[in-house]
């Protein structure tokens, strides 16, 4: 009870660590056990999160489309996504005869692993981080592009022309949008002076970057949202799936559990991207602070840090969902035009602006 009251996950972690240390004396074994517990709980957390995101997406879509959405399975339809998952798991998981079977079965696994790995350096709450790697930002941008390998693999190995087209589109798309994502990440790195996500959050103690860095940071925030929506293949940039054009894109041939894994990775990606945006621009778990107003800051500290983190993340998730249910899809060449003619030049200029701002100390 005491642990919960302090809202500190680190004390929870310490408590568990001590508990295990009493049981297991071998230090290597202890470490392995802790890692397994961590991994299992992370996966469980992500699966529950994906259930929630799936439910949220269907409800958001329904309310925007003036209908009710799932409301008959479980209370308010909340068990709908559980039923869907169970059904997908129990469905015949067929592999097409002419597919490259090894790669075909490997692709969804790579997708899921790739998106789960990005979770590691993200701080969910104060002192709650799996691994505060000192090059966190670099790690995030490097690992998050692993997903494209899964998509290319899925598209190629399916032996389906639609899949191949979808995979090729996705390749071109992710390679180009990676640049803008990277540049907008750099602008925050420049301002905070650190690559570690923990340090970046702490650097926003007297105000979030989006407020402190005013216009240039807002620009890079917008660019980050747009580019990362494209990177996780969500509408209006879902060229790789493009249901109306390519029926299912890269996952046309996938059924049952393998398809469920694609869905899982899609939602994890959505969460990760929003979490990174929240961490970098909106201060992660950091409460809303204004530099100099200690009384105000103190009141804000009463709201638990995890609540701050998740409310920011879900705000961004909601915005990305609203994109999906409002906009038409871009055409494949317009997608690249948007990146190379608009996002990239603007973010390049913006990085210079941010750098000048950081050197001159023009930010708050």
């Amino acid at each position, binding site marked *: 009870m005491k642990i919960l009251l302090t809202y500190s996950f680190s004390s929870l972690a310490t408590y568990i660590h001590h508990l295990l240390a009493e049981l297991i004396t071998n230090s290597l074994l202890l470490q392995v056990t802790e890692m397994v517990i961590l991994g299992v709980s992370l996966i469980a957390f992500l699966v529950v999160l994906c259930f929630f995101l799936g439910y949220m997406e269907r409800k958001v879509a329904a309310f925007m489309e003036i209908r009710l959405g799932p409301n008959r399975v479980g209370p308010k339809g909340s068990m709908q996504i559980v039923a869907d998952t*169970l059904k997908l798991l129990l469905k*015949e998981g067929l592999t097409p005869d002419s597919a490259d079977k090894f790669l075909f079965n490997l692709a969804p696994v790579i997708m899921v692993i790739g998106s789960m790995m990005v979770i590691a350096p993200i701080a969910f709450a104060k002192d709650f981080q799996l691994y505060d790697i000192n090059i966190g930002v670099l790690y995030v941008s490097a690992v998050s592009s692993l997903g494209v390998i899964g998509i290319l693999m899925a598209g190629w190995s399916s032996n389906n022309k639609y899949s191949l087209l979808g995979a090729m589109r996705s390749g071109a798309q992710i390679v180009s949008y990676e640049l803008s994502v990277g540049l907008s990440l750099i602008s925050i790195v420049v301002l905070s002076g650190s690559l570690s996500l923990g340090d970046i959050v702490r650097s926003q103690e007297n105000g979030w970057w989006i407020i402190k860095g005013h216009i240039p940071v807002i620009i890079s925030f917008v660019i980050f949202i747009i580019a990362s929506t494209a990177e996780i293949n969500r509408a209006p940039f879902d060229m790789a799936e493009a249901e109306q054009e390519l029926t299912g894109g890269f996952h046309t041939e996938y059924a049952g559990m393998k398809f469920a894994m694609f869905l899982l990775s899609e939602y994890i990606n959505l969460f990760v991207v929003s979490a990174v945006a929240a961490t970098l621009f909106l201060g992660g778990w950091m409460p809303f602070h204004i530099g100099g107003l200690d009384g105000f800051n103190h009141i804000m500290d009463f709201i638990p840090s995890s609540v701050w983190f998740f409310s920011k993340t879900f705000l961004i998730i909601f915005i990305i969902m609203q994109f999906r249910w409002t906009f038409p899809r871009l055409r494949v060449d317009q997608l690249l035009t948007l990146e190379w003619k608009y996002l990239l030049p603007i973010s390049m200029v913006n990085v210079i602006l941010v750098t000048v701002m950081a050197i001159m100390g023009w930010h708050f």
Partner: protein
Amino acid sequence: MEINKSMEGPLTFPGQVHETADGGILVTKLDDVINWARSNSLWPLVFGTSCCAIEMMSTAGAKHDWSRFGFEVARATPRQADLIIVAGTIVMKMAPVLKRLYDQMPEPKYVIAMGACTISGGPFFYNTYSVVKGVDHVIPVDVYIPGCPPRPEALLHSMITLQEKIKNEQYFKKKIEDVR
């Protein structure tokens, strides 16, 4: 559900496995869970050939909203679909295509024959040379819903009828019997 009571006709289904003494509570419970999942997550294939497809779209629309049952995830690829709503006439040239789509779907799969044309050829039963007289000549059908086209509520009714059918399936029990 009330709907079931109002249904006329015997409630024995083709392919039903009869109750046996063994099987046990666990198997029955598992079957219940599986049937719950399957019946509440029927993803239809985007497949409409003619007029009935428009009523299918109306059912998806805001007024009737089949997403309340979790049916709204219409998949364009047969691999991810659980259900074909054959909405519209099937002609000789289309029949092999429909058969192939059905074969491409992974088990378990269900078929609703929507409208007069799919049940029996309907208005095109007589004097036509190209219409398949009943889609059950091509693929097995689970639920028939007559009408030309049936109104959206009728389609919902047929999907609820299908749910009732799925709830009486015995997946694990059948598996166990197969092993024996």
